[in-house]
């Protein structure tokens, strides 16, 4: 029998970095159903873990927080290879409506709320929602166009200030 002497591992004297995420800043830049949900799910998921969350809506992502549009978000049936559906079929009037209805039904089954309810849930959970100033100016919008959960219209610079010290997630 032999005894192996293993080298003692070198112990670092530096404090280890904490292994948890304390804060996230999520950018929602797309206005389709499949473009908006991931950001909302990640924001809600962060809050559920006690992680601070800011959500910044930009370009067509603003549709998720627009009073007149957030109830009418649709799946993109054209130019969406993930659907595995011929492009021409996706272009038929009503195709987007139908696919959206089917997908919403599936989501309801696994307890994912519709977008208006989801925005309310995310807002109530303490995540902060912001609209992108450049887009708001481009589309000629004001705070009145947005749902009450929206905290403010902020510039990219202000977004980075708020995101300081956290992780940025672009969707």
């Amino acid at each position, binding site marked *: 029998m032999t005894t192996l002497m293993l080298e003692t591992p070198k112990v670092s004297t530096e404090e280890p970095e904490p292994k948890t995420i304390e804060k996230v800043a999520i950018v929602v830049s797309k206005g389709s159903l499949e473009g908006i949900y991931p950001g909302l*799910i990640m924001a*809600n*998921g962060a*809050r*559920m*873990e*006690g992680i601070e969350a800011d959500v910044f809506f930009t370009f067509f992502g603003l549709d998720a927080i627009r009073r007149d549009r957030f109830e009418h978000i649709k799946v993109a049936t054209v130019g969406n290879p993930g659907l595995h559906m011929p492009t021409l079929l996706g272009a038929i009037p009503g195709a987007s409506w139908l696919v959206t209805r089917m997908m919403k039904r599936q989501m309801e089954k*696994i*307890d*994912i*709320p519709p977008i208006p*309810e989801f925005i309310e*849930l995310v807002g*109530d*959970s*303490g995540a902060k929602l912001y609209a992108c100033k450049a887009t708001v100016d481009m589309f000629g919008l004001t705070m009145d166009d947005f749902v009450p959960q929206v905290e403010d219209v902020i510039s990219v610079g202000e977004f980075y200030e708020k995101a300081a010290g956290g992780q940025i997630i672009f969707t």
Partner: protein
Amino acid sequence: MTATMIAETSVDFDAEGFLTDPAQWNEDIAREIARENDIPELTDRHWLVVRFMRSRYLETGTAPSIRALGKESGVPIKELYELFPKGPAKLAAKVGGIPKPRGCI
């Protein structure tokens, strides 16, 4: 898995501090877990949420989503986060002696 003595009973926890056997749970254990998770005192509203989580898990085999918790427990989402700032579903499950909820919502 580690066994810890709480209120003169041996309780088994997983690596994240959730009870591995919901049957070992009692109210003293709940209070002790709450204290360890920065909830010094469990109010009636805390208990409402904890009992709802627990009974739903024991009935269905899965913990309710945060959406169901907000709609059906009688405690709205905003208040859930005031009661359990570090995550209502996760903490209420921990205090209620059931496994960590696996759902994304």
